């Protein structure tokens, strides 16, 4: 018998977030310029595994992805059993900045998808000095819900299965079946109320709209990417958002959906490499 061990390594980081102890899972691969990757709502770092396993990407980039608290292998904080999980912009920003600091990342590129892309744009506006550049995937200024977020947390139905069936609307028919289902599996596994709590942030906080114009892309470039099959953040949404950020660039990916790095890894890879090429390489510059 023989097997293949992937290049990805995973570890746990214990740190305080919001004054409370958290145990956060992160994984990484590669060497060079740090690139911090943020998963979508209701999912986890596995969405990034194809790129973390891509030798060309990791040859000159250190890709790091972490599971947000409550997601994947990161535990919720002590006392969660009586709490209603509702993500906020402030808590999300604090989490990303704390991870950057705790992992000792020197001005990483920040790459986020969906709600991760939204927070990447918030950080581009509010904390640009902590990053080299921003890759905002399936990200927009604001998305009102076209669904009732309470569908995904109720005692008489499985929120994960409903969430997966709903988000399948955002997956491209060009995606290989295996990766389509792997993408949905993460939603099926999501903890009770977590997808709802993420969507609360994603569909109710419109504070980014007024901040987009303040983003200085001469200092930290912003590159947006959007899949043509994304019903949640449509190409029109991404175009509107990019147009509001002076100097931002945009790539429309014709055969991809809302989870491009996960649903169609080979289709997404060239777009991501192009995005990385647009980001300053501080590690190389310093060498």
């Amino acid at each position, binding site marked *: 018998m023989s097997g293949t061990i992937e290049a990805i390594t995973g570890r746990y980081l214990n740190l305080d977030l919001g004054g409370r102890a958290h145990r956060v899972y992160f994984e990484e691969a590669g060497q060079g310029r740090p690139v911090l990757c943020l998963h979508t709502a209701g999912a986890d770092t596995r969405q990034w595994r194809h790129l973390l396993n891509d030798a060309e990407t990791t040859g000159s980039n250190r890709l790091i992805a972490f599971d947000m608290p409550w997601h994947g292998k990161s535990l919720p904080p002590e006392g969660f059993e009586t709490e209603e999980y509702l993500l906020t912009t402030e808590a999300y920003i604090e989490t990303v900045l704390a991870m950057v600091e705790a992992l000792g990342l020197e001005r990483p590129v920040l790459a986020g998808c969906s709600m991760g892309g939204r927070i990447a744009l918030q950080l581009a506006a509010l904390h640009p000095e902590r990053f080299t550049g921003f890759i905002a995937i399936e990200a927009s200024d604001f998305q009102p819900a*076209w*669904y009732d977020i309470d*569908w995904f947390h109720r005692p*008489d*139905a499985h929120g994960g*299965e*409903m969430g*997966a*069936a*709903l988000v*399948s*609307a955002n997956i*491209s*028919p*060009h995606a290989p079946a295996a990766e389509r289902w792997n993408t949905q599996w993460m939603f099926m596994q999501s903890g009770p109320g977590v997808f709802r709590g993420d969507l609360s942030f994603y569909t109710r906080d419109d504070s980014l709209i007024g901040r987009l114009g303040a983003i200085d892309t001469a200092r930290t470039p912003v590159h947006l990417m959007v899949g*043509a*099959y994304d*019903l949640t953040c*449509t190409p029109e949404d991404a175009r509107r958002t990019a147009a509001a950020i002076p100097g931002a660039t945009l790539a429309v990916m014709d055969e991809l959906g809302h989870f491009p790095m996960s649903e169609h890894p080979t289709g997404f890879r060239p777009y991501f490499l192009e995005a990385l090429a647009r980001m300053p390489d501080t590690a190389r510059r310093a060498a």
Partner: protein
Amino acid sequence: MQARLRAMQARLNGTPHLRRLGRLFSETVLLKVDEAEYYLVFDRGALAAIQCGPSRKTPWRFALSTDAAALEAFWQARPEPGFHDIFGLVKIGRGRVDGDILALVKNLRFFKEFMALGREVEEVPA
């Protein structure tokens, strides 16, 4: 359309995983295509009957309304953006869902996969 629906009915009955997913689904769904109405009577995950309307006497749990051209685009093997999902049809203004939407959402995978069965069958003359 009736021939297509009958082919989908046969395909559903021959798809064990869908029968298993729909084992708690016994509802009537109204599929409205332009002005034509089809009442799809599901019984424990099987499509027990396809009744042509219009009928004001047939109760239904939820309804999907669309047009024939949109449905044909939906049934392409690789549909264009927006035509690739029933909620895509709604989003681009070519479809509408009425009635008990929660009943649809609770059975969303089953119903979406049933509707997608039309992608795998050739329409035969009635």
